C-alpha cells in the first residue's frame, strides 16, 4: 500500500521512541518518530478526516426535508459539526508535515479511503435517527478510545470531537424513540432503517484483527488502544438494550445473550459486502465522490478570488507603506 520503501530506522532512536510509548507519553509533532508511525498516522487520520467530510452528504441529503424546525436545526448543527471535525483532523494531520489540500486531492481522485458506511444511501427520514444512534454510536465507541492515542494532536482533536459528538448520538436515539412511539407508518420507517444500517454499522469497526493488516503495529505503538473486535463487541453490548428499550428488532436471527461472557453474541458478518464497498462498488460510492468533486470544482473560482483579493490587498498596503 505504501509506495515508498520503509527506511531503516536508527535502532537507538527507535528504542527510545518505543520506551516513551510504553511509558504512556504522548508524541508531539516535532518529536522523533519512526517513518512507519508517521505514515500510519497520516493514513489513519486522513481517512478519518475524509470520513467526516464525506459523512456530511448522507445526512445533508435530508436537511431540506426535515419535518420540524427543531429537527432541521439539529440536523444542520450535526452536519456542520462533521465539517468541523473533518477540519480539526485535517489540521491535526498537517502537523505530520502533509498539506490538507494534497490529502483532499487523494479523496477527490478516489485514491484515499473513507468509512464505508457513508456509501450507503439515506432513503427515509428515519435514517437521520438511525445514523445518529448506530453510526455515531459506533464512531463514539471508536473515538473514545482514540482520545487516548499516542499522537498528541490526534488525541486532542478526538477529545474535542468526543465532547461535541455527545449530542449526535442522543439526538439520533431521541429521534428513533419518537418514531418508535409514533404512527404505524413511522414505526415501519424506523424498523426498515434499522434493518438497513445494522450490519454496515457493525462493519465500521473494520475486519477482525486477525485479518487487519495494520492492527498489530498500530496497537504496539498505541495509535490504536483496542482491537476492532473488542470495540465491535462493546458497541453491540451497548446497543442491544437500547434497541429493546424502544421496541425495534435487529436483523440478526443469531443474536443472543451469553450469560457467561455477558456479551451479546451476534451472527457472522458478510465481509464480502464490506470489501465490495471498499473497492468502490457500494451503493453510493460514485455519487459521494461526484458530490465532493462538484463542490470542489464549483468552489475553485471562489478560492481563487479570495487568494487574488488578498494579494491585491497586500500589494496596496506595500504601496502605501
Amino acid at each position, binding site marked *: 500500500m505504501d509506495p515508498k520503501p520503509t527506511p531503516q530506522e536508527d535502532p537507538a532512536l527507535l528504542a527510545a521512541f518505543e520506551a516513551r510509548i510504553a511509558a504512556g507519553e504522548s508524541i508531539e509533532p516535532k518529536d522523533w518518530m519512526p517513518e512507519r508511525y508517521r505514515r500510519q498516522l497520516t493514513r489513519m487520520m486522513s481517512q478519518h478526516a475524509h470520513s467526516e467530510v464525506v459523512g456530511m452528504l448522507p445526512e445533508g441529503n435530508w436537511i431540506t426535508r426535515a419535518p420540524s424546525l427543531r429537527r432541521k436545526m439539529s440536523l444542520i448543527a450535526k452536519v456542520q459539526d462533521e465539517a468541523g471535525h473533518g477540519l480539526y483532523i485535517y*489540521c491535526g494531520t*498537517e502537523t505530520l508535515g502533509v*498539506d*490538507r*489540500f494534497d490529502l483532499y*486531492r487523494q479523496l477527490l481522485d478516489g485514491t484515499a479511503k473513507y468509512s464505508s458506511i457513508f456509501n450507503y444511501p439515506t432513503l427515509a427520514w428515519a435514517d437521520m435517527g438511525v445514523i445518529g444512534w448506530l453510526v455515531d454510536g459506533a464512531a463514539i465507541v471508536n473515538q473514545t478510545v482514540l482520545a487516548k492515542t499516542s499522537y498528541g494532536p490526534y488525541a486532542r482533536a478526538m477529545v*474535542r470531537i468526543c465532547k*461535541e459528538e455527545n449530542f449526535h448520538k442522543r439526538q439520533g436515539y431521541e429521534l428513533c424513540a419518537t418514531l418508535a412511539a409514533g404512527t404505524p407508518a413511522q414505526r415501519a420507517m424506523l424498523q426498515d432503517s434499522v434493518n438497513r444500517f445494522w450490519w454496515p454499522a457493525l462493519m465500521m469497526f473494520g475486519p477482525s484483527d486477525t485479518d487487519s493488516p495494520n492492527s498489530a503495529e498500530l496497537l504496539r505503538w498505541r495509535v490504536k488502544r483496542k482491537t476492532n473486535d473488542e470495540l465491535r463487541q462493546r458497541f453491540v453490548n451497548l446497543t442491544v438494550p437500547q434497541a429493546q428499550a424502544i421496541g425495534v428488532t435487529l436483523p440478526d436471527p443469531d443474536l443472543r445473550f451469553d450469560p457467561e461472557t455477558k456479551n451479546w453474541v451476534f451472527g457472522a458478518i458478510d465481509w464480502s459486502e464490506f470489501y465490495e464497498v471498499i473497492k468502490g462498488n457500494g451503493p453510493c460510492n460514485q455519487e459521494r465522490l461526484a458530490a465532493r468533486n462538484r463542490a470542489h470544482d464549483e468552489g475553485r473560482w471562489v478560492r481563487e478570488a479570495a*487568494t487574488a483579493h*488578498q494579494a491585491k490587498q497586500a500589494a496596496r498596503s506595500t504601496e502605501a507603506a
Partner: protein
Amino acid sequence: MSAGAIGGDSHWPLWEVFTQGNQGEPFEHAGSLHATDAEHALQNARDVYARRGEAVNLWVVPSSAITASAPGDAGPFFDPGNDKAYRHPQFYKVPRGVKVF
C-alpha cells in the same frame, strides 16, 4: 490539477487559533485553520472554534510566525528550572506559631 496550482487551499495560509473561554482567563490554543488574511481567519475561527460559545475572545496567528522550542532542547531548556527550589515559597521557613502568612 497540481497541488501548487492556484485555487488550492494550500494557497491559503495556515493560522493558529487561540480562544479565551471567559473574561480574565488565559488564551488557549484551540486548533488551526486556513484563511487568506487576518479578518478572514478571525471569521473562520469564530465559526469553527467558537460555535458553542467556547470563547469571549479570539486570537489568530499565522502558523509561520510561531517559533517553537525543539524537542532536543527539552533538557537544556527546562531541566534547569526544576532545581531552583528558592523560587518556590516552600523553600522559606516561617517562625513556628505564625499560622497564617
